[in-house]
């Protein structure tokens, strides 16, 4: 139990260090690399000239400081983007407004998981039950597993906001709930 806690602390410290370094380098204007200089596209690829540039699409969306430098949740809620919910007509949209608190977070503030914002983008089946059981306390989530791409880490740290944004999840001070 004690060892587990100190592992948690070390994982949190490692993430925090990267977050601190990233924030010192990432301050200032929002910038997006051109496709021919992003390290993954081949500058000689004949299709490159036809592809939309990230700066063209993303600079008009609500700003953020991490990931794509776009607040995707706000972009959706303000109706600035209107991403389709389905390509098959029979697909149902299931919204759920239910917050779940994860209290076992060592010295960090507790985690609040808002279903609503997640169900605006995702379907229940994306997480349940292969990533998360539908039962409070039944999911042994920790930062090591998340960093390895399990649980929240399936999306956060890859596509949804990065794992260096500790306080976006660890947002509930312990005293707030006790009161």
């Amino acid at each position, binding site marked *: 139990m004690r060892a587990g806690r100190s592992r948690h602390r*070390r994982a949190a410290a490692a993430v925090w260090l990267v977050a601190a*370094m990233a924030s010192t380098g990432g301050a200032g204007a929002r910038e997006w*690399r051109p496709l021919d200089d992003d390290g*993954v596209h*081949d500058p000689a690829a004949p299709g490159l000239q036809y592809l939309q540039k990230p700066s063209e699409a993303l600079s008009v969306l609500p700003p953020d400081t991490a990931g794509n430098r776009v607040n995707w949740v706000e972009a959706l809620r303000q109706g600035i983007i209107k991403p*389709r919910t389905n390509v098959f007509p029979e*697909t149902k949209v299931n919204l759920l407004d239910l917050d779940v608190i994860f209290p076992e977070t060592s010295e960090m503030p507790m985690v609040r998981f808002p279903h609503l914002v997640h169900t605006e983008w995702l*379907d229940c089946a994306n997480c349940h039950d292969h990533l998360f059981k539908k039962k409070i306390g039944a999911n042994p989530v920790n930062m090591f597993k998340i960093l390895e791409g399990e649980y929240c880490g399936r999306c956060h740290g*890859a596509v949804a906001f*990065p794992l260096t944004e500790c306080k976006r999840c660890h947002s509930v001070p312990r005293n707030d709930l006790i009161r």
Partner: protein
Amino acid sequence: MTTAALAGLGRVLRRRGLAMMLATLCVALLAGLTAPGSHAEYGDVVINNFSDKAEMRPVVFPHWFHRVRFRCKVCHADLGFKFQAGGNEINMLKIIDGEYCGACHNGEIAWSIENCDLCHSGKPGTPTQVHESTLQKLLTPVNK
């Protein structure tokens, strides 16, 4: 004195936590120093399961472009894309059959598959992975 100091340092470094933090700091410093260098857009996925062998450029899938137009669930629930870079065994036969990318890239919802160069636009030899991930930034950049 030096030997004792080195031995002490070695003992400390063998403790995983500190070693991990030092490694992280080094990588972070390196990343900071090379900050203006090339980097993919957050969430860009390179899929190179078969491309290199087929002498095609690997595929670059930009999540940012697609999430402006589609919610995650369209591809990850309805079309069955697993949350795993390269884990979907996509091939051109399935795409032509209307599976995976082919559910939209059929000339009706999005441009059709004869535009090979629009997807196959990656640098040859780029490994299959999600680029710019937090884990990638924490680990030694083996592929750089």
